[in-house]
């Protein structure tokens, strides 16, 4: 069974990273920086955390390449919808 095959990631370490990032986010959010700078920084950290969860906790990192493609497939659609509609405002 493929799960047995893969090396066990250091779950606790990742847990630590997630916590640190969460605290970092909260701290960063209340600095008085221009909104755009805040947004970019926060979203970057959120994406980082999301990737951590997907890659290690959901074991995407140890799945066959075609699973990565499968998992990523809806993201372009999400972007298309939001970006297109935003041009209205």
């Amino acid at each position: 069974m493929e799960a047995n095959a893969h090396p066990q990631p250091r779950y606790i370490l990742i847990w630590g990273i997630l916590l640190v990032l969460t605290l970092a986010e909260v701290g960063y959010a209340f600095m008085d920086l221009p909104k755009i700078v805040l947004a970019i920084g926060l979203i970057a950290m959120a994406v980082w955390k999301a990737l951590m969860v997907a890659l290690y906790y959901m074991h995407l990192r140890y799945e066959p390449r075609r699973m990565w493609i499968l998992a990523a497939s809806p993201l372009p659609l999400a972007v298309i919808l939001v970006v297109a509609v935003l041009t209205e405002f």
Partner: protein
Amino acid sequence: MSTAQLVSSLEGEDRSQPGYAGEGQHDISFIRKYIFSTDHKTIGKQFLFLSLFFLVVGGALAGLMRWQLGFPGQPLPGGGVLPDTMAPGGIILPEFYNSLVTMHGTIMVFFAIMPLLVGVFGNLLIPLQIGAPDMAFPKLNMMSFWLAVPAGAVMLASFFVEGGAAGAGWTSYAPLSTSGEWTGVYLGQQLWLASLIIMGFSSLTGAVNYITTVINMRAPGMTWFRIPLPTWSLFITAILILLAIPILTGGLIMLLFDQTIGTTFFIPAGSGEPLLWQHVFWFFGHPEVYILILPAMGIVSEVLACRARKPIFGYHAMVLAMIAIAFLGWIVWGHHMFQSGMNPMLGTTFMISTVVIAVPSAIKTFNWLGTLWRGDIHFDTPMLHALSFVSMFIIGGLSGIFMASAPVDMYFHDTYFIVAHIHYVLFGGSLFGIFAGITFWFPKMFGRMMGEGLGKIHFGLTFIFYNMVFFPMHNLGVQGMMRRIYDPNEYEFLRPLQEMNTFISISVFLLVTTQFLFAFNFFWSMFKGRRAPANPWNSNTLEWTVPSPPAHGNFAVMPTVYRGPYEYSSPEVDADFYPQDQPPPGVGSGGHTASGPEPVPGA
């Protein structure tokens, strides 16, 4: 993989795959067999009866609409039975007319055509054509059907609640649809939303099942480019459903909240955005229309190749074209919103992407023609329906090009030109494809042949009356007649069109009457039809290698696939067909062999 490998891989454990009929038949209670069945073939039949019922309902609603349009303000014969809230004294009320239009569109799209294509043929064909014993998740499959039933019940119930059924069009544009204060419809609109949310879950569970099954459960040798086109089309359709339906569900939920708990996502009075609803709806809506045509295209490709006894022309091109449609389908939704006040720059972009999507359809059309070229064409009922699909889809598609041009759409938007387009693609396309599919696979479903003579008569009359109904709608559109209007005669410039509207309505009544032939043929053949051989059409695909109807578990042993699905008139064999599982000369035994052409019914 090479056939040698395949054969060796077939020795031993693989032959006794769990689930295959070879495992031995276990008999089960009536309930488990016919009502809460997990057999994909039974579920397919359940969907067939459910969606044919809704097709009749949708047709009846259309009949009522056409009565009003053909004979405005005149009492409907026998319309007295309708309650006064709908048609006092048989005279259809404007608000009831709006409900008719809305429910006709909704029921036809979500409860007739979609389940007919996806629910019926998806269930029936996918496991059989890829050589699997059943779907990946049979229980989930059963759930998919048993979600569709309550959804349909709720939709029908909405006719009989206070204020009547939803009346804001099948597109339910906000803010009209957000409050009964605009339409007089309160509960009905909410039931409409609830019903579609449930139906969404039904489609979703189906889609998850189909995708998993096609990816993971193909028989040995069934490589991606040996998959028959109906299964290919259903696989791509399932992906569209998987990604499009949740978007609609999200929108429906927001709309439901706007109506019930006082949110204002789409209500400008609370600084909501009406256009947001349109974007969400059409981002789902355009993929949806391809959901409604792709499986029909697959079915037609199968029938054309089989009845022309010729390999499908450009198999790879056919598959790639469908994939291209599936991709492009996501970036054209704005063509429904050209006149909606959308940013005109965006309009230009959508105009360009929209015309581009005509290209893959062009590829398919020309490949169908290429398949007929130098064929040996047998005119059986399924073939006749498939051929009329091709010819009618061309008309429907070409009318789409007019509206794809934004300035021309400025005139045609929301006129009967659109209505003509809709019906040429959805009736002339999808429904003729469905007729082709039902008549083609009827023997596999019920173990009996459908009456050919009656079938041909039904086809002929349907084809004529259908064109008498919908072709003139183009001319109505050219004259500028708006859609969704209760009585065109309100407009001076539309009065001269009454004659044509009456002509259309009379043709509709003929068209609907003709369908009784089909109904009769359908039920009569089910019980009295000639017993069907395993492979009445001398077809190549796996479903025809097992008895009609196939046993629970489909295949006695897991079949092995040696070639593509459309090896007709191959020089390798004397017969003009070459089943996918027939071992090539020299390779070990096991699969079926084409023992000369069996008599083809009717031909």
